[in-house]
């Protein structure tokens, strides 16, 4: 079944940009972006790894400036959609404390052909990691640290 976007932004259907505390589903985002004109949907699923630089990680905690993160994802998503002539794009980021193996972020991009969908999905993730205001804290057996925040 072809899904309808749950959220129509600026008249652009098959898009969704959301921060949520609930577990993420890849299928949900595929349903949002998929249209009958698509030959490809590429998804990226970010998951919690059990180590960082060889050090054991037991959990990750994500914090977001929710309103801004959603607006920033929307800005990135719409730009990427136009650049690669996508039919749909969706980006959803999880917040809260996640265990190893849980999904932290999902991106889905739909297009008539696979190349555009692959490129768009990769580019959207790169840009999300650069500017979307979300922060990650790593929990180890013997401590915790905000990633990339030095004295923090």
């Amino acid at each position, binding site marked *: 079944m072809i899904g309808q976007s749950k959220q129509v932004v600026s008249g652009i259907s098959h898009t969704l940009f959301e921060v949520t505390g609930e577990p993420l589903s890849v299928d949900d985002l595929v349903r949002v972006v998929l249209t009958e004109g698509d030959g490809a949907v590429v998804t990226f699923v970010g998951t919690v790894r059990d180590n960082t630089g060889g050090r054991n990680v037991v959990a990750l905690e994500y914090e977001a400036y929710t309103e*801004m993160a959603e607006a920033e994802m929307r800005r990135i998503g719409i730009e990427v959609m136009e650049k690669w002539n996508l039919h749909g794009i969706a980006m959803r980021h999880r917040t809260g404390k996640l265990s190893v193996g849980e999904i932290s972020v999902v991106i889905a991009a739909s297009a008539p052909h696979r190349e555009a969908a692959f490129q768009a999905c990769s580019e959207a993730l790169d840009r999300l990691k650069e500017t979307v205001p979300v922060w990650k804290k790593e929990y180890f057996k013997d401590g915790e640290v905000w990633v990339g925040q030095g*004295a923090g």
Partner: protein
Amino acid sequence: MVPLPCCGRIIVSIMKITIKLFASFREAAGLSEAAVEITPGTTAAELWQGLVEKHPGLAPMSRSAGMALNGRYTQPTTVLAEGDVVAFLPPVSGG
């Protein structure tokens, strides 16, 4: 606050704004949101300086502080206005 026109000049002595802090900044200052009063002409950078004076734990993080005005990235030199929401952002690490 609505500026009061008086004697051909605009007189506004105090403006109310909201500060938001996240992640390591939030922990260092011990607050996530605060309503503060500033004088007209105050910039985002000056607001941060005032915050650091009140919460010295933020001092080592000054170099890495990003700033957002009403939900969009902004420059430290931005002059603030009544009702603004100013967020100070550590380097992002989502994904």
